[in-house]
């Protein structure tokens, strides 16, 4: 058992957040940032509901703050909420793409969506085909390979489509192409074919990338009633990244939001290497500012939130929260090194592990001291830790 009667360590152990870690979001400033992003989504939803989206239905959000301040955590937290807010979200970490080509960026965008998104889209596309076939559309019937033989055998169009959805049967790719090309543009046809056949073809030009991203967002809005949020993390002055961002912003991909996450260093790199992109970012619709995200109060609130979220036993009351907040504030005063979300969470993870080992009811100075020694063996802590001990 961990401190405060917790069954598991509430703090994440990895240096970068995962989607699972990001289910919890603490800190007033981080919550305000979240509200601002959700407000943008709500505002755009209000504009595009009950009509097809146009070029004016595009938003840009920037999130610029120092390393380890919780930007990626915020982005992944929003991604976790996509089901509740009518969005399909793709998270892309630009630093993991090398070399940065149009093709690799597109693949990363596709991989950045949840699998469930493509499953839902596929089902909707096939249901649409089914409806048209049932209405007598011969091209639709051919696309799902529904023949006279099926009819005579008593197999309905619905049965046929159900089998395709379950993977027991295939569409006729040739006839599907004919059907799609008669009704949709090149990129929309390609996307639907790719989704239905579970096979995504590569792309090589910025024009194709913009075409495919527009198709994803338009068809997502039409078939699923959702907006698409493209989250691009670790933006910097890299030429391919900035040209890609410039292309996307200029294209005004309908029914979508482009959220760009960077550090001040990356942002000023963009300023120096691509002033026209920088100018566009300066005029973003929403500029999320995590100012004060590394303040003592914010760090205390974040630390407390993790425990509160997991406190099934109800042992982490107001008194315990205030005590922990006090210890964190002393820690931040004495160790400027830890005045950062990432560093503090790391310390608290190890502190919690120690609390389990020592069977502590609550976090105390010894546990914190051991955690610091364990995490930062080279740090001269002796003198300063005496302060914590006296506290």
């Amino acid at each position: 058992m961990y401190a405060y009667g917790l069954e598991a360590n509430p703090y994440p152990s990895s240096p970068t957040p995962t989607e699972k870690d990001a289910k919890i979001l603490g800190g007033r400033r981080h919550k305000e940032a979240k509200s601002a992003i959700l407000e943008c989504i709500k505002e755009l939803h209000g504009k595009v509901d009950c009509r097809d989206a146009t070029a004016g239905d595009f938003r840009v959000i920037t999130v610029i703050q120092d390393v380890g301040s919780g930007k990626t955590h915020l982005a992944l937290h929003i991604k976790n909420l996509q089901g509740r807010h009518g969005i399909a979200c793709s998270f892309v970490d630009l630093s993991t793409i090398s070399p940065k080509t149009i093709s690799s960026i597109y693949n990363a965008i596709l991989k950045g969506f949840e699998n469930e998104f493509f499953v839902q889209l596929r089902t909707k596309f096939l249901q649409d085909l089914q409806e048209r076939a049932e209405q007598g559309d011969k091209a639709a019937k051919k696309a799902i390979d529904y023949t006279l033989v099926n009819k005579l055998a008593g197999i309905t169009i619905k049965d046929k489509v159900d089998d395709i959805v379950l993977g027991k049967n295939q569409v006729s790719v040739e006839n599907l192409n004919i059907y799609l090309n008669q009704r949709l543009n090149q990129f929309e046809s390609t996307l639907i074919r790719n989704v239905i056949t579970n096979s995504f073809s590569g792309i090589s030009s910025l024009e194709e990338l913009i075409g495919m991203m527009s198709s994803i967002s338009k068809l997502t809005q039409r078939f699923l009633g959702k907006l698409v949020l493209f989250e691009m993390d670790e933006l910097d002055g890299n030429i391919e990244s900035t040209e890609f961002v410039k292309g996307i912003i200029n294209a005004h991909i309908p029914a979508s939001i482009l959220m760009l996450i960077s550090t001040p260093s990356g942002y000023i790199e963009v300023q120096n290497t691509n002033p026209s992109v920088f100018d566009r970012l300066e005029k973003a619709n929403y500029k999320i500012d995590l100012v004060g995200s590394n303040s003592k109060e914010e760090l205390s609130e974040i630390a407390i939130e993790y425990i509160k979220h997991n406190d099934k036993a109800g042992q982490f009351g107001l008194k315990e929260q205030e005590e922990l907040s006090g210890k964190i504030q002393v820690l931040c005063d004495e160790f400027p090194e830890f005045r950062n979300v990432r560093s503090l969470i790391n310390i608290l993870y190890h502190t919690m592990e120690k609390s389990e080992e020592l069977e502590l009811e609550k976090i105390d100075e010894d546990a914190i001291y051991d955690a610091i020694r364990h995490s930062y063996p080279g740090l001269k802590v002796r003198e300063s830790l005496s302060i914590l001990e006296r506290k």
Partner: protein
Amino acid sequence: MGKDILQTIDSAGINGIKKADLKKAYGKDCDNTLESLKEKEQIFIEKRGVAYFVWSKENYIDYLKCNDPKCKLVLETAGPSQSTAKSKHTQNLREARTISNYSTLENNDFQSIFNKCLHESATSIGWTSFDKVREKICEIHNLSKEKFYMLARDLIDKNGARYEVSSGGQEGIIVRGLVHGYVRNV
């Protein structure tokens, strides 16, 4: 409380005592008492490293003599003897304070110059690089690069809630062992 605090400060000797330690021992009211003692010139407060230290008057002079060669020279030139005559002692203290006040004045000027420069060169969200600010200020005010960063570091440490710094860049102030080359006024 004033007497107790003064006694604690005096007993800390030439190394002084951390302001944070005094606040922990004597509570929030300690700040007002320290300000009052400082105004009466019974104590001196100075930043050392990342923390503020407090000395009693005599201990501060001894500290300056040991650590500031300029101050030591001035004090030794001002009077050879270490007599406890009140006028000589007051004169020494006045000279030591003059040296300290010179830095304070510089710091006050520097803050307004720094803020103005930040405002002029920042992006819409307030960030700018230290090297840009440094080049401007050093050129106009004839400051060395080292002096600029000493003053900038001091300013940011004293006004932690007012400035944010971010890592990266070729030059800047060192925080957590990393060069923080970007700054903004929040």
